[in-house]
């Protein structure tokens, strides 16, 4: 039986692969037949993810995406890519009245600038193969912000606009670009974001999810779909994954 639901013969670069959604996605992609190039800042944790991958030929390249030279090294040591998954990012809740340029920069550099810089540099270096698929991790916050999440929401909305532009500019090469916007997913980032919330308000929020909160593997499965030939006809979309949260809105 032939199926388009696979990642055989695909080389895929993934950022933020040392924890949360990125780590789980790397593991699942390898299970689906991909050869993975993992990147992240922490070598030890990169090796940990690398060891968890099935199959052979995978590698890791340590990189601080905020560092220009480090990003350049990553691009030059990367092989030709059939897929690129951007999972690196941070969430730092801060109310509007307290925002300053350093605070704005902190979130935008991690969640937007480095995403654009890496993508652009890979295209410039002609490392993205024809028919490749790019997946950007956005968030439900991009369209539905939360209190103290202005910069996070802005960075994700910016990523969504960027992804659509990539889709427009590169469709002649059959290259596709899509976003995934999850709502609450149980990850270390989720734990960081829930700092400052009381247990009661957290429980009240979780109760709003008809299908419960999400897990990294839920998102990983969608990333696999968007990377695989099964999504050949899909580009420029933002796939909302919210366990039904927004059904009543």
């Amino acid at each position, binding site marked *: 039986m032939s199926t388009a639901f696979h990642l055989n013969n695909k080389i895929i670069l993934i950022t933020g692969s040392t924890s949360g959604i990125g780590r789980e996605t790397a593991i699942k992609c390898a299970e689906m037949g991909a050869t993975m190039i993992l990147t992240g800042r922490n070598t030890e944790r990169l090796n940990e993810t690398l060891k968890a991958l099935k199959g052979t030929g995978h590698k890791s390249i340590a990189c601080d995406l905020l560092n220009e030279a480090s990003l350049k090294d990553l691009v030059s040591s990367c092989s030709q890519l059939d897929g690129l998954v951007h999972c690196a990012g941070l969430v730092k*809740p*801060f*109310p509007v*009245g*307290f925002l*300053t340029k350093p605070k704005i920069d902190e979130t935008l550099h991690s969640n937007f600038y480095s995403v654009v810089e890496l993508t652009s540099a890979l295209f410039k270096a002609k490392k993205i193969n024809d028919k490749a698929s790019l997946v950007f991790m956005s968030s439900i916050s991009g369209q539905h912000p939360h*209190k*103290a999440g202005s910069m996070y929401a802005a960075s994700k909305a910016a990523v969504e606009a960027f992804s659509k532009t990539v889709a427009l500019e590169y469709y002649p090469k059959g290259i596709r670009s899509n976003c995934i916007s999850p709502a609450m997913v149980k990850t270390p980032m989720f734990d960081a974001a*829930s*700092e*400052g*919330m*009381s*247990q009661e*308000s957290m429980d009240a929020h979780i109760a709003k999810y008809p299908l419960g909160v999400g897990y990294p593997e839920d998102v990983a499965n969608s990333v696999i779909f968007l990377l695989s030939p099964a999504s050949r006809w899909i580009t420029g979309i933002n796939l909302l994954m919210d366990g039904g949260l927004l059904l009543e809105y």
Partner: protein
Amino acid sequence: MTLTLESFIAKLEEEIDTIPKGSLKPDTNYRDIKDWSSMHALIIIALADTDYNAVLTGNDLRSCNTVSELFNVIKSKIA
């Protein structure tokens, strides 16, 4: 900025405008502040970060009840 309990109380009264000036005492339970919400918790975390360079967590907030307890936690975390 030097952190004294008095200056911290003054800061809280300035940032959270549902607190009548001069009404906040060291033994006030900060959750009893009028219309207390998660937004106020976020403001306290941001205030600690901005003015005292202290990183507070939700657990820190959960572990305190009074304004002076909050003050002591921030003081212990000043970088």
